[in-house]
Each structure stands twice: as structure tokens, then as C-alpha cells.
């Protein structure tokens, strides 16, 4: 059972950066007007931000981190750890975290590594950063989490293209002697579902050949290549509505808290239909359950920090809050985190 309890690390700041280019699902070319209306109503996704060809996840995360570090007033050479969580790195080799260490002007004495997770990535990233800091008594760390997953979807695939948007985030952590409740995690995995969300070709198992680059019509409205993202909506739905509430419930039980004692629940933004099923299972009141789906869609690993900045920026930077976060999806991988935040630095969403 992967429960982790970190008592000496606090979240110090959080920032998000999105591409300027906004795209409305009413303009999606491969569905009828009626189908589009139904899609928007069911998924809750109206608009999405899409990175241009020259903008990578690392660029969005860089802007978020650069501004966050400045607003925190941190000396860059005091940052001991940088972790980059993404499924859309700059290169297959090397890790993107090393490039960002240099670009952000961090010290050579800074540890840096990548974590390749998506929807659960923010939770896993937080747990990894907090554990490293606590074990090594590292004073300051930056967690960069984001994806430009629209680069991996095929516009002719109605089961993926209208759902996803791009975003990059940066979250700052510092060692503290007085963190209140600290940060608690529950982490879990079910690799039997690894095909539910997948890019089949382009790794070591299946290289990019002519077949992988050929578009295939899987069914009406779903055309893609093996180098494009595929998603089995039904499998992911069944997974999400069972595992996400289960994980949140397990963590709440573990820490001895109930729904009433949490100020806000920030769950991975999959789609409205799935997220509402999860909310109702946990009996969370609507006003405590935050969304950013209509504005930004599913931004993969970035959804949780992006939703925090989008919805409660003015609260996280002015008063103490008890937050329950939960990420679930590709892997299949999922996890939840509980933390008490107190006056954390949270700049406006950055657009580039």
C-alpha cells in the first residue's frame, strides 16, 4: 500500500502558462453541429489552448517557473531539485529536466530528472519531490508539470482531438519546520490497462516505420496513425469512475478527515460526464469541486495545478486552505494528495 506522509515540506508557490491560441470545439471540422453540441454538453469542454509548432511543453513550464521563482524572490542557486513531469518531452534523449536546469539558471548542484506520467503526474511528481526533499533535507525544489498533448492527437480522431488542450505549470516547494498537516499521498497502478491510453509507435517496442505513419480509419470519425494518441473512452471511463473516488476515499480515511473538512477538491479534468460521476460518488458539494474544463479542456498532467490557478488563485495566496487533489488516467496510474496550503504565491495565468 503506497501511502506516504511528509511532514516537513510545504507548497510555496504555483504558476501556470498556456498558449495564446484558443480553439473552440464549435469549430471542430469532423463532427456535425448536432454532434458538436452533444460533445460540448457531455464533456463540458468548449475551448482549448493549442501550442504552435514552435512551442513545447518545456517552453510553457519554463515561463511558469521563471515567473514563479521571480515572484517568490528565490535565489536560483538555492534550488536543489528540479523534476519535470510530462509525456511530451523535448526529445526522446536526453531528459528535458536537464535542459530546463540550465535554461532556468539553476546551480550545477541541482538534482534534475524526468517522470513520464500523465493524468496522475502532478500527484506522483509532488510525492517524488516532497520525499526527496524530506529525505535529503533539500531546502527548495521546483516541480514542472505539463503537456502539449495536442501535438500527439490526430485532428480526424473525434475520440481524442476535441478533448485535449496544452498547458505547462510550475510548483515550488520548500523545507519547513512548521507545515501544519504536511502532505499525505496515496499512489496506485494497474498496468493491465496500459493500452487504454497509448501512443503505440515511436518508442523501443515499435519503431516509426511506414505503417506507423499511415492513417487508418478505425471507425467512422476515428482516423489516426500509430504515432498518434489513442484512447479507449469506455475503458478509461470505467476506470475513472471507480478508482478516483476509491483513492480519494482511502486517503481521507487514512488521514482521518471527511468531505466537510476539505475546502476544495481538485481532480484531474477528464471530462464533465466522468468528473460529475466521481463527484456524486464522493458526495462532494458542487461549490467545493473545481473545474477548468470549459476553458482549457483536458490538459493531461497539468489539469490540477492549472485548475487551482484558474479557480482559487485569490484564495490560495491569501488564506489557509485544506485541499484534496486526485489524478487518474494513462498507465493506468492514479493517486491522491491531501495538503494544507497557507498563503502560497500564485501569479495570474501566463499566456505566451
Amino acid at each position, binding site marked *: 500500500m503506497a501511502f506516504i506522509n511528509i511532514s516537513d515540506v510545504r507548497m510555496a508557490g504555483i504558476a501556470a502558462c498556456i498558449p495564446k491560441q484558443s480553439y473552440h470545439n464549435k469549430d471542430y471540422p469532423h463532427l456535425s453541429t448536432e454532434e458538436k453540441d*452533444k*460533445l460540448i454538453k*457531455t464533456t463540458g469542454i468548449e475551448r482549448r489552448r493549442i501550442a504552435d509548432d514552435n512551442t513545447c511543453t518545456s517552453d510553457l513550464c519554463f515561463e511558469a517557473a521563471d515567473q514563479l521563482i521571480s515572484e517568490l524572490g528565490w535565489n536560483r542557486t538555492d534550488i536543489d531539485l528540479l523534476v519535470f513531469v510530462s509525456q511530451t518531452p523535448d526529445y526522446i534523449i536526453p531528459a528535458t529536466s536537464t535542459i530546463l536546469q540550465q535554461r532556468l539558471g539553476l546551480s550545477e548542484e541541482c538534482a534534475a530528472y524526468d517522470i513520464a506520467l500523465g493524468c496522475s503526474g502532478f500527484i506522483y511528481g509532488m510525492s517524488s519531490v516532497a520525499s526527496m526533499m524530506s529525505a535529503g533535507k533539500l531546502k527548495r525544489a521546483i516541480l514542472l508539470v505539463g503537456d502539449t498533448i495536442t501535438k500527439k492527437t490526430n485532428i480526424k480522431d473525434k*475520440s481524442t482531438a476535441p478533448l485535449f488542450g496544452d498547458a505547462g505549470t510550475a510548483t515550488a516547494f520548500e523545507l519547513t519546520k512548521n507545515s501544519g498537516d504536511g502532505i499525505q499521498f496515496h499512489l496506485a497502478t494497474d498496468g493491465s490497462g496500459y493500452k*487504454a491510453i497509448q501512443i503505440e509507435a515511436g518508442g523501443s517496442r515499435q519503431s516509426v516505420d511506414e505503417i506507423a505513419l499511415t492513417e487508418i480509419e478505425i471507425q467512422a470519425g476515428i482516423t489516426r496513425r500509430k504515432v498518434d494518441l489513442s484512447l*479507449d*473512452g*469506455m*475503458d478509461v*471511463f*470505467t476506470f475513472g*469512475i*471507480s478508482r478516483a473516488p476509491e483513492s480519494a476515499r482511502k486517503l481521507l480515511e487514512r488521514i482521518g478527515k471527511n468531505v466537510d473538512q476539505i475546502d476544495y477538491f481538485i481532480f484531474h479534468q477528464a471530462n464533465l*460526464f*466522468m468528473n460529475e*460521476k466521481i463527484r456524486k460518488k464522493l458526495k462532494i458539494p458542487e461549490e467545493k469541486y473545481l473545474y477548468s474544463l470549459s476553458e482549457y479542456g483536458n490538459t493531461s498532467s497539468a489539469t490540477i495545478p492549472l485548475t487551482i490557478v484558474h479557480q482559487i488563485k485569490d484564495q490560495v495566496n491569501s488564506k489557509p486552505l485544506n485541499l484534496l487533489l486526485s489524478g487518474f488516467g494513462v498507465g493506468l496510474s492514479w493517486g491522491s494528495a491531501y495538503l494544507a496550503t497557507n498563503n502560497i504565491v500564485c501569479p495570474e495565468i501566463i499566456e505566451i
Partner: protein
Amino acid sequence: MELNSFIENFAAQFDDTDVSEFTPSVNFKDLDEWSSLTALSVIAMVDEEYDVKLSGNDIREANTIEDLYQLIANKN
């Protein structure tokens, strides 16, 4: 679990299809209103009403409403 009540629950996931169309032997994927979104509603209904997890393959392999009923009965 009883077949008639399952058919009622199944039919409740549709907005426009006439109730008379929902028979045990109907190929539900041939119904005009059937879509990937209806599939999610059916999965959610089965989860709520029968506490059974349907996979994408379960839906793909079932042809009739009765097929689906049998599948859920076996998992229950």
C-alpha cells in the same frame, strides 16, 4: 437482477428512441441514437445499479440487450 428491469434501466439512457424498440433481442448498436456517449451512460448505469464494471470490450462484444444482461449477471 431481472431482465425486464434491466431493459428499463437500459432504455432510460436514451432520449429519443421509442420504448417499444428495446426488446431483449434488439441489436442495440444498430439503434439510431446509439453513440459512444450512450455507451458511457450505460456503463455508468450498470456501475450504479448493479455495481458491475463493464469494459470497452464487454460493450463491443455484446450484440443484443440480452447479451449485455447475461454478461452483467455473470459478473454479478
